[in-house]
C-alpha cells in the first residue's frame, strides 16, 4: 500500500472519530484508529485521546529534516486558524513561524519552526490579569478571546515571542470551524485544540507530513507507548530556553 493510500485510509478513520464528538469539544469515546507499526512517527495522522486530564500533548521537531524553503506548516496554520497576514512584519500574526539560525562560528544554517511551547509553567498565564490565558485539562495553554482585555502583559512575559496581538480588523476567515481573529486581543497557537478534540493532529504537523519532510511528531507525552515518547527516549532532544524552568512541551533535535 502506498503512503498516500494509507494516509487517506487513516483520514477516513479520523473522520469516523470526529462523528463521535458531541459539541463543545467533549469527546465521548475514541478508539485508536490504527495499531502496531502504523503508530509510526510520520504516519501518525490520527490521535488516541486518553481520558480527560490524562493527556499532555507535546511536539518534537527534527531540525535535521526541516528545510529552508518549506513553509508547509506556517501556511497550513494560517489557513486552519485564520491567522492574519497584513503584509507588514510589524503586525503580522504568527502562531508558528520559520526562523533561520546562523551559527556564530560558521557552518550550515539551520531552519526550524517556532511556536507556542505550551509550557507546563506558563509565564503568560501567570501574568494574565483576568485569567484569560488558561491551561486546558490536556496541558494546552489557551486564550479565552472573549475575556482577553488586550493589555499585552503576556507578550512581555513570554520568552518565545509566541504571542501576537491583533493590530487591525481582519477579514480573513478561511476556516469556518475556527473563529475569525478579532482585533484588540492577543492570540497564539492552540496546538489546534479543535482538531485534537476530533482526534486529528495539528494542521502544521499534518502539512509537514504531507510535504514529505516529516520533521514534526505530535503525541501524548504521558503515554509511554506513544511515538513521541519513544522518540524522545531514543534521541537527544532539547527545549528552547530550558534554563528558565518553564518546562516547554516542544522539543527540538539538531540544535
Amino acid at each position, binding site marked *: 500500500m502506498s503512503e498516500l493510500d494509507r494516509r487517506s485510509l487513516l483520514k477516513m478513520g479520523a473522520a469516523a472519530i470526529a462523528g463521535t464528538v458531541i459539541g463543545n469539544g467533549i469527546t465521548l469515546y475514541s478508539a485508536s484508529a490504527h495499531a502496531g507499526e502504523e503508530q509510526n512517527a510520520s504516519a501518525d495522522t490520527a490521535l488516541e485521546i486518553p481520558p480527560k486530564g490524562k493527556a499532555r500533548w507535546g511536539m518534537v521537531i527534527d531540525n535535521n529534516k526541516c528545510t529552508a524553503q518549506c513553509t508547509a506548516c506556517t501556511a497550513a496554520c494560517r489557513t486552519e486558524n485564520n491567522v492574519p497576514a497584513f503584509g*507588514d*512584519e*510589524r*503586525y*503580522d500574526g*504568527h502562531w508558528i*513561524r*520559520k*526562523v*533561520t*539560525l*546562523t*551559527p*556564530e*562560528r560558521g557552518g550550515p544554517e*539551520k531552519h526550524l519552526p*517556532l511556536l507556542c511551547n505550551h509550557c507546563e509553567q506558563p*509565564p503568560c498565564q*501567570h*501574568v*494574565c*490579569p*483576568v*485569567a*484569560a490565558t488558561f491551561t486546558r485539562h490536556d496541558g494546552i495553554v489557551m486564550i479565552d478571546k472573549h*475575556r*482577553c*482585555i*488586550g*493589555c*499585552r*502583559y503576556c*507578550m*512581555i*512575559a*513570554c*520568552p*518565545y*515571542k509566541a504571542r*501576537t*496581538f*491583533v*493590530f*487591525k*480588523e481582519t477579514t480573513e476567515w478561511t476556516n469556518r470551524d475556527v473563529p475569525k481573529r478579532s*482585533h*484588540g*486581543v*492577543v492570540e497564539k497557537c492552540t496546538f489546534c485544540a479543535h482538531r485534537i478534540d476530533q482526534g486529528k493532529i495539528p494542521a502544521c504537523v499534518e502539512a509537514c507530513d504531507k510535504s514529505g519532510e516529516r520533521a514534526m511528531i505530535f503525541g501524548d507525552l504521558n503515554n509511554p507507548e506513544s511515538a513521541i515518547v519513544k522518540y524522545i527516549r531514543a534521541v537527544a532532544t532539547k527545549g*528552547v*530556553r530550558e534554563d*528558565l524552568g518553564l518546562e516547554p512541551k516542544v522539543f527540538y533535535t539538531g*540544535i
Partner: protein
Amino acid sequence: MANMKTKFSAIGGNSAGFRLLVVMLGLLSLGGFWSAYMMYLHGHHITGMTNAIPWGFPIVMAVYLIGLSAGSLVLSALSSVFGRTEFKPLARISALLAALLLIGALMCIILDWGRPDRILVPFFSMNPRSMFSLNGMLYSAYIGICFVYLWAMFNNREKLVKLLGYTAVFWAVLVHSGTGAIFGFVGARELYSSPLLPPSFIAAALSSGTALMIMVLYGTFKLTGRALDDELIRRLGLYLAAFIVVVAYLVFIENVTRSYWPGNYAVQKFLLLSGNKYSLIFWIGMIGCGLLFPFVILANPATGKSVKWILFASALVVIGVLAERYIIVIPGQVMPMEMFPGYHIAGPFQDGRVIDYCISPMEILFGAGILSFVFFLYALGLKFFEMMPDKAVIDEGTAGEKK
C-alpha cells in the same frame, strides 16, 4: 499652633486666565480621549507599537503618573504622619493631586488596552498571581484611601486623618512596589528581571513626585495670589536632594550588578555604551536630568537656597524621571531575546535584531491628553472645594521648635 487654624477656601476661578487654562486643559484632554478612541476603533497599528514592542508610551506614562502620585501623597502625610506641621496647609491639595494622578495612571493603562470596553472583566475574573491583577486592586484602594483621607481632612477628624495618613503611606509603598514588580518579576527579559525594581521604583516615585509638587505648589500659589513661604520650598528641595541620592544609589547598584555578569554584557553594552537613542536617554535624560544636574543644583549652597534654582532642579527631575520610566519600559523590549545561544536568529517576527521603537504622534497626544485631564480635574477641584489655604507660611514659633 498657628498652623492648626489654617483657613481653607475654594479659589474664585472667575478670572479670564483661569477660564482659559481650564478650556485649554479640557481641549487637550479631549485630544487624548480622541486618540484613545481611534486606537480602540482602528487597532493599535496607528501607534508606534508592534508585535515586538507591545508596550509603548502609554505604559511609560502610566508608571510615570503612578510615581508622581507617591510624592504628592507623602507630602500630604508629612504633617499627619511625620509631624512636620509646617506642611499642613499643603495637605489637601497634595492628597487631591495624589488621587488624580493615580486616576490618570489607571486611565493610561485601561485606555491602552486592546479592548477597553471590557473594563468590568478585571473585577469579575482576577488572577492573584498576576502583578497587573494585584495592582488593579492596590490602585483602586489607593484612590479610595486618598478620597477618604481628603474627606477626613475636610471634616477636621484629626485622629482619623492621622490613621489614614499612616494607611496611605503604607499603601503607597505597596502600590509602588507592585508597579516595580510588573517589570521586575518578568524573568524572560534581562533588562526587566530585577529584585531592585520595586525599591528603586519607590525612590524614583518620591523624587519625581516631590519635584512635581514643588512646581505645582509654586504655580498654584503664584497664580492664585497666595503667600507661599520660600522656606517650605527650600525644605522640599532638601527632601528632593535626599531622594535623588537614594535613586542614584539603586540605579548604580542595579547596573553594576548587571554589568558584572558576562551573560549580560550585550544588553549592558547596548544600554550604556552604544550611543544609540536609548543610551542617550539613559545618560542625558535619566542620569543627567534626573540625578546629576539637579543634585548639583540642590547641594550647591549658592543655588540650593534659591527658589528659582530649586524650581529649575525640580523641572529637571520631572523630565529625568520620565526618561527613567522610558528606560524601564522600552529597552527591555527593544533588545532581542536570546533564544538560541551561539546562533544568529532571523525570522518574520523581527527576530534576532534590535527593533526600533518611535513614540508616535498618536501616543504623544494620548499621554499629553491624560496628563492635561489630571490637571483639568485639579483646577476644577480647587474651584469647587475648599482646598487652598489662605497662606502657607512657617510660623516663627513652630518652625523654631521643629528645626
